[in-house]
């Protein structure tokens, strides 16, 4: 069969491999592959951060500690300080834990054979809701319950516009959780789908060339491998960028919720 026709039959299998299949148990309660990998990433995050914190020195000589410290400094100086400004220090632990967890989850998914937990909409929904609850909590704490609801609408508007703008701002605030979740999920899912399709094409073309001893079909496979490597490099960038974007958007939402209008 022509390898391009074979691809059409393989794609449903590829899609099905992204569904959250049960590893243990079935039906309502059990352990899906994404939850399994989420626990592994959680353990990895804890190990990385705790080991780095254990070896902390005023002048780091260890490369690993230096790397973790650079990540922490990025969250503290580049994200929290810039986006939140005054009183940013109490938000750094939350932002740093979210950043490290998402970063490690994204990178674990890039290892062949592993699944990225953030490639499942349920995991990203959970992360987004944590962020959503967090910034609303700090908003209520800063303004008081009624004051927080009022603070959605910027002051100085004509009285007629106030309810309309207030309602639109409320909707956009509720959409923040949705967009946080969908952005991370769709980026990871689409990236891994593209990687999977290029890998499938490579293997299909090579197996066709071997089965029919037709070397002409092995040539496109070289191109597919090059595409695969290029997309892989892009995915490494995206994995970092999405963790950064999730953290910085959380920081911006916190600053919006707590700032005085």
């Amino acid at each position, binding site marked *: 069969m022509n390898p391009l026709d074979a691809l059409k039959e393989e794609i449903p299998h590829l899609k099905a491999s992204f569904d959250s299949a049960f590893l243990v148990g079935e039906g309502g309660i059990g352990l899906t592959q994404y939850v399994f990998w989420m626990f592994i990433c959680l353990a990895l995050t804890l190990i990385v951060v705790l080991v780095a914190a254990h070896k902390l020195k005023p002048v780091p000589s260890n490369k690993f500690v230096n790397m973790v410290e650079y990540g922490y400094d990025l969250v503290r100086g580049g994200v929290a300080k810039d986006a939140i400004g005054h009183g940013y220090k109490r938000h750094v632990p939350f932002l740093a834990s979210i950043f490290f967890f998402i970063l490690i989850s994204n990178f674990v998914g890039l290892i062949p054979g592993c699944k990225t937990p953030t490639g499942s909409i349920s995991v990203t929904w959970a992360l987004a809701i944590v962020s959503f609850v967090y910034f609303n909590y700090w908003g209520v704490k800063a303004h008081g319950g009624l004051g927080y609801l009022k603070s959605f609408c910027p002051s100085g508007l004509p009285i007629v516009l106030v309810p309309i703008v207030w309602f639109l701002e409320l909707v956009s605030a509720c959409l923040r959780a949705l*967009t946080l979740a969908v952005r991370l999920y769709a980026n990871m899912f689409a990236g891994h789908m593209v990687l999977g399709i290029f890998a499938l094409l490579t293997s299909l073309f090579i197996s066709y060339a071997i089965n029919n001893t037709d070397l002409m079909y092995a040539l496109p496979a070289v191109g597919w491998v090059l595409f695969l490597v290029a997309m892989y490099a892009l995915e490494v960038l995206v994995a970092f960028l999405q963790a950064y974007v999730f953290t*910085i*958007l959380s920081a911006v939402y916190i600053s919006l919720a707590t700032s005085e209008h």
Partner: protein
Amino acid sequence: METVFVLSALKLVGYGLGVIGAGIGIGIACYGCCTASARQPELAGRLFTNFIIGAALVEALGLIGFVMSFLV
């Protein structure tokens, strides 16, 4: 069979149309970031952060379209 094919093709066309907007948006944001940091290189770091935030907000719309094309 015919309707299924037309429906799945229309999904792709709709997603492509939706992405035009996101593409233009990110393009304009990148243009602004580049020209601004060429004029004031000392602000490049902060401008880039703002560019990332804007691009992420625009990109979310395109990605919602992507997810919708799978779900619907």
